[in-house]
C-alpha cells in the first residue's frame, strides 16, 4: 500500500475521533485494556497527534473485541469501535509482516464461517496452523485445546474438515459475503 493512501485512510480515522476530549470513558470501559500496550484514550490521542507509525505498530486495536461499550458510553458520541476496526484494516495493509499472525487467525476464522455459516473450531485451527507453517504452533495450543475439548466446547466434525480454500461455501453464505464485499467497496 502506498504511503499516501495510508495517510488518507489514517486521516479518515482521525476525523472520526476528532472531537475526543480525553475524558477516559473508553479506557475505563474497555474490558481488554489490561492486555493493550496503549489504552484506547492514549491511542486516540496518538491518532490526533498524527503519530501514524506508532499507532499502526500498536496492538490495541487488534485486541478490540468489538463489544461496543466505549461507543455506547462516549460522551462525544464518537464511533470508536468502528474506528478501531478501520485501524485493524489499515494496519494489515501498512504493516503486513507485523500483523501476519493475527490476520492469519482472522482469515482462518472467517473462512470457517464462510464455509459453514458458523465456526468449526477444529477446522479453523487446522487451517490456521497450515497458513502459519510453524510445526511448533499446534503444540502451543494443545493445553487450551484439551481444556476446551473437556468442556465440550470444540465441535469435532466427522467429515469435511472444510480444509483448504477450494471448498465452496454452502447455502446463502456466499451471497451474504458478496453483499458485504460490495458494501465495503462502496460504503
Amino acid at each position, binding site marked *: 500500500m502506498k504511503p499516501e493512501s495510508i495517510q488518507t485512510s489514517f486521516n479518515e480515522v482521525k476525523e472520526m475521533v*476528532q472531537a475526543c*476530549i480525553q475524558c*477516559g470513558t473508553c*479506557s475505563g470501559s474497555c474490558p481488554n485494556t489490561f492486555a493493550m500496550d496503549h489504552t484506547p484514550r492514549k491511542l486516540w490521542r496518538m491518532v490526533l497527534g498524527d503519530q501514524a507509525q506508532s499507532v499502526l505498530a500498536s496492538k490495541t486495536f487488534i485486541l478490540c473485541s468489538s463489544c461496543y461499550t466505549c461507543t*455506547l458510553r*462516549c460522551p462525544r458520541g464518537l464511533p470508536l469501535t468502528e474506528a478501531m476496526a478501520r485501524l485493524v484494516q489499515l494496519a494489515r495493509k501498512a504493516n503486513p509482516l507485523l500483523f501476519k499472525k493475527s490476520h492469519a487467525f482472522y482469515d482462518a476464522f472467517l473462512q470457517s464461517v464462510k464455509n459453514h455459516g458458523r465456526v468449526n473450531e477444529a477446522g479453523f485451527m487446522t487451517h490456521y496452523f497450515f497458513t502459519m507453517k510453524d510445526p511448533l504452533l499446534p503444540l502451543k495450543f494443545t493445553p487450551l485445546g484439551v481444556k476446551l475439548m473437556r468442556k465440550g466446547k470444540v465441535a469435532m466434525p466427522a467429515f469435511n474438515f472444510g480444509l483448504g480454500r477450494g471448498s465452496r461455501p454452502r447455502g446463502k453464505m456466499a451471497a451474504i459475503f458478496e453483499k458485504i464485499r460490495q458494501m465495503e467497496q462502496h460504503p
Partner: protein
Amino acid sequence: MEKRHKNALVVGAGISGIRTALDLAQQGNTVELIDRHPAMGGLLAQLDYQFPTNHCGMCRLLPLTRRDEGSQYCLRKGMFHENIHIRLSCELKNLEGEAGNYTARLRQKPTWVDPDRCVGCGLCEAVCPSEIADCFNEGLSDRKAIHLPVPHAIPNAYVIDLASCTRCGECEKICPADAIQLSQSRRRDFQILVVDDELSIRDSLKEWLDEEDFSVDMAASGGEALDMLGKKPYALMLTDIKMPEMEGTELLELAKTSYPDLVVVMMTAYATVETAVQAMKMGALDYLVKPFDPQTLIPMVVRIFQDTEAAKDLELQVDTVVISTGTTFYDPADPRNLFGYGIYPNVLTHIELERMLSHTGPSQGQLVRLDNQQQVRKIAWLQCIGSRDTQVHADYCSGICCMIALKEAILVKKMTQNSTDTAIFYMDMRTFGKSFQAYYDDAKKDGVRFVRCRIHSLAQDRETRDLVIQYVSKSGEHLTETFDMVVLSTGQRPGHQMKELSDICGVDLNPYGFIQPQPFFPAATGNPGVFVGGSATGLKDVAESVIHASAAGLNASGVIWSHHRQAPLTAQGQEAGPVMDETVRDVSREPVNIFTVICSCGHRLEQEVDPGHIMSGLRDDPEMVGQLVIDRLCTAEGWENMVSALEKVDANRFLIAACHPYVFARKIKTLARKMNLHPSLFHAVDTARLFWSVDSPAKEDGSTSGSRVLQELFQGATVLKHTGTDPIMPIPVTRRALVVGGGIAGMTAALSIADQGVEVDLVERDKSLGGNCLWLTRTLEGDAIGPLLNDTISRIGQHPGINVHTQSSIKDITGQVPSFFTVIETDEKQLVNRSHGAVILATGGSEARTDSYGYGTSDRIMTQKEVAAKWGGDGANPADLGTVVMILCVGSRMQPRNYCSRVCCPTALKQAQDLRQSNPDLDIYIIYRDMMTHGFSEAYFTRARRDNIMFISYEPEHPPEVETDQNRVLVRVNEPTLGVPLEIETDLLVLATGVTPQLPDELSATMGVEKDGNGFFLEADAKWRPVDSLKQGIYACGLVHSPRSVTDTIATAQAAAQRALSILSNETQYSGQIAAQIRHSLCSRCERCIPACPYVARWRDPEDDHIHVNDMMCQGCGACAVVCPNGAAILEGFTGKRMLGVIDAAFQGTTVKEVFLEAEK
C-alpha cells in the same frame, strides 16, 4: 372568573422569582407571584447550605428600606409583602395582549385544605392511611397523602395529594378547624360519559369510576353518545376510537363543535396510537392505550377533574410578565441507567445528598448508607452525569455542578470530622465564578481528592453492596475503587412544561428547551413585555440567579414605567406608606388601657381551658380594661365582628390572641389606620398552638393550659405596655443617580435609571465612552459588539436625563443614602458639586499584564487583546501564520491572580475559530488547565475539537516552557495522555492573561466600599446581595464587580440599576419601626457602636460631636445596644423594661425553680 389588575406577574416563586417580586414591590409596583408548587422557595427550599459560606442567608434578600411593608423573618419559611400577592399551586394558562396590557389567565389547583383555616396541628396526617414517597426529600422518605409540602413554611398549611388520596375521609372528620374540604359531592357533580361498543369495557369503566364517586353514564355508539350529550351537560367523555357505526374521531369532531368545553379522552388499541395523536390535534385532551387498568385511568380522570372542575380560573390584567421557572435535573435512570440509579441503594443524585445532609432530611442530617444505615466512610461524586454528553442530547455544561460537588464534599468532611474519604471524578473543574477558585483550593486543603477521569458506569458488589468504580489514571493505569456511596452530579434540564409555557408567553427556546434570551440582553425574550430571570435560561448559582432576577426586574419595571409615565408609588397614593405623625392619635400621655380579643378557634378554646379563669386572670391587671372572645378571627366574618366591636371600645392598646400572628400583620395595619392609632399599639400572640398541636404541653394536664394561655397573654400585654410609638418620619430622597465609569456596564446602568425618569450623572475618566467594548469585536456566539456600542452611545447622547462628564473623575463623596454629596472634577479641572440618592460603581477592568512565558522578548508573543487588535477586525488575513499556540490561565487561578477570569477560555475559542476560518491550514494548539466553557458555550468547545484544534492540558505545577530567539518561538509542554514532552515551534504565541479590576484606592476609600482580596468590589453578601455594597445606596456592576462577558456585564448593570431604583423611584423613603436611637446625654463617645454596626449606619459627626444613626441604613439588629456600656444606644421598642417584663410574664404563676424543674423533666 375573578378579574384583577397588577403591575407585574412573576411566574415561579423560587429564589429568582422572589428577588424579582421584591425588587418590583419595593419600588411600589404591585406584583402577583405564582408558583405551580404548593410552597415557595423552589429548589432552594430543599438546600440547607450554600457555598462559599456553607450557610443559608436567604433572609438577606429582604428589603432594607420600607422594611415594615413585608415580613422580616426567615425567607425560607415564607414571605409577606404589602405589594406582593402570592398564589401557590397556580399556573399560567394563557397570555394575551401586548407589553403594558396583558391579560393573563391563571389556574389555581385546589389543595383541598383551606390554608386560611388550617392550623398545622397534624392530626390529619396521623390518621391518613395512604403513604407515598416524599418528593421534598427526593423520595428518600415517605409521607402521607395529606402532608406539609415543606417542613418549615409559615404559615404551614397541609395539602392533599389527590393522586394518592383514598378519600377515606378520616382527615375531614378529625380536622378541628374544618379546614379540609374533601367533599364527595363535588365528584358526584362531575358527569362522565363512557362511549364504547363493547359492553364489558363500558361496565368495568363504570364500576371503577363509580367506586371513585364520579357520576358515570354509558353509550354504546357515537350516535347514542351525541343524543346523551344533548340531554345533560357532561364534563368528560371517554370514547373508543374503533366503533362500527361512527368512528371515535368523528364523534370527537361532532361533539367538540356543539360542546367546545367538553373534555374528551380517546381510548385506543396499541395499533391506532397514531390516530389517537391525530385526535389530540383535533381537540382531544389525552388518550389511553388499551388494555389499561384502574391505576392508569383513575389518576388521569382525577387530574382532569382537578384541572377542569375544581380548579379556579382567574383573569389578571398585568403590564409585564417575568418568567422565573428555573430548571429541572436529568434523570439518571433514563434511559440507559449506567449508574444503577434507583437499583443500587447507595447511588444518589446531588439533590438527594443535600436532603441527606439536611436536618429535616430522611436521616436527620446523618450521612448513612441507605442499605444498612452504617456510617458512610468513602464517598465519590461523579461529575457531568447528563451534561457534556452528546449521547443524551446535552452538548452543554450545567454550570454549577462542580461547585455543588465541592460544597457537598467539604460539608461531608466537616460533618464527619474529616473521617470520610471524599473523591470527585471530573473532566474539567469549572470554578469560573467570583471566589470559586479559592473555594476549590479550600477543598483541596480539606483533603478532598480530585481525579480527572470521567466515570463510565459502576457496579455493585453482590455481598457487601459496596459500589465499584473502574477508571484509568492519568498515566493509563486501570484502577478499581470501592465506595460506600456514590453521588451523581446530574445536569440541568428545562423546567416543567417549558414548551407549553414558551408557547403561552410567545418566547423562543434554544435547541435544548431552555428559554433563549436576546443577544446581549439576558433578561429579554422575543416578546417585548415578557422577561426571564434566574435559571430558566440555564442553571445558575444563587448569586447569578439573583443578578439575572434583578435584571429581569429592571426590564419589567421599565415596561411598567413607560406605560404609566410616573413613579408608581405616587400613582398609587399614600396608602402604602407607614402611618405618619399628624394622622395618628398620640397616646404617649394617656394611661395604658389594653383591650384583649381572644379567638375561640371554633369553640376549641372553651373545650380546652376555662374562659372564666382566663378572664378573671386578665382582670387582675388594672391596665387590662376589657376582654372579648370572638370565634374564628381568621375568617372574614370573624374579623369584621371584631372590628365592629372594637369601634365601641375605649382603649389605646389592643391584644389579639389567635393562631398565626404573622397572618394578621396586614389586617392589623388596615385596622390601625381605620382606628387612627399607631400599628405598634396592636399586638398579636399565638395562643392556639398551646392547645392545637398534637404534642402540645397543655394537653397533658387541662388545668395547666389555662395558665399557659394567661402567660402568653401577659407577655403580649407587656410588649404593648412598653411599645414604642415614635412616628416614622419620611426621609426625602435625592432623586438623582451617579454612575462612575462609562463602559458598557456604566452606560447600561445610566440608561436603565434615566429611562425611569431619574436624572443621572455619568462620569468617565477617558475622552470617550465605551471602555473595553471599543476593542472587542464579537462574542463567541458571533454577535457583533460594534452595533451594540454605537446604539448605546447614541442613546446616551440623546437622553435628556443623562449628563455625561468625560475626562472627569470623582474627587469626593460624602453623606449617605439617600443623599450623597459628590464632587466631580471635570475635563477643565473644574469642581462640580452634585447630590445623589444612589451611586453605581462601574469602573471596569482591563487585561492583566504579564512578564511570564517570554512576553516582551519577541513580537510573536502577544496577549489576547493584542491579537484582537491585530486580527480581530473583519477582513484580516493571518495567511503568513503556520502555527499558533495559545496558553491559558497565564497568572490566573494561581498567584498573583488566584481567580478565574471567565472570559479567556471563550476568547481563545473565538480567536482560534476566527484564525482557522481565515486560514484553514493553520495548526492551532490551545494549552489549558480546565476549559471554562460553562453553560451553552460548551458547544463551541466541542466544535473547536471537531475543527482539529489541538487541546493540551497542563497542571500549574508543570507549566509550559517558552524559548525565544530572533526568529522563532518554541513552546515545550508535557502531553499528559501520551506522557511525552512536546516541542511546538510556533509563529504566534497568544497569552490569556485574564482580567484585573480598576478600582483605585482613593475612589473606594471615598465611596466607603471595600475590596476583596483580588482588588474587585466586595459585595455585601456574595450570594444574596451580589451587586450591593455593604454601605447602602452603593452598587457595583461590570468588570469591577467580577470578570464576565459583555452579556453577563449587562445583567449586572441592569441588576445594579434596579437595586438603585428601589431607592430612587420614590420621593421619600422610610426606615423600619424598629431602629436604633442614641441618648446623647448618656453617650460617652467611646465609638464602640460604630464598628459593631454591620450595616455601617453609624458615624461620629465632628461638628456636634455626637454619634449619629442613618435611619435608612439601620436594620434594627441591636448590635449597638449590646456593645454600648452606658445604655446610650437603644433600640426603639426593645427596652430593658420590656424585655425583662416579657420574661417575668412568661414565669408568672410559677417560680423560677419550678420552671427549671419542669425543663429538666
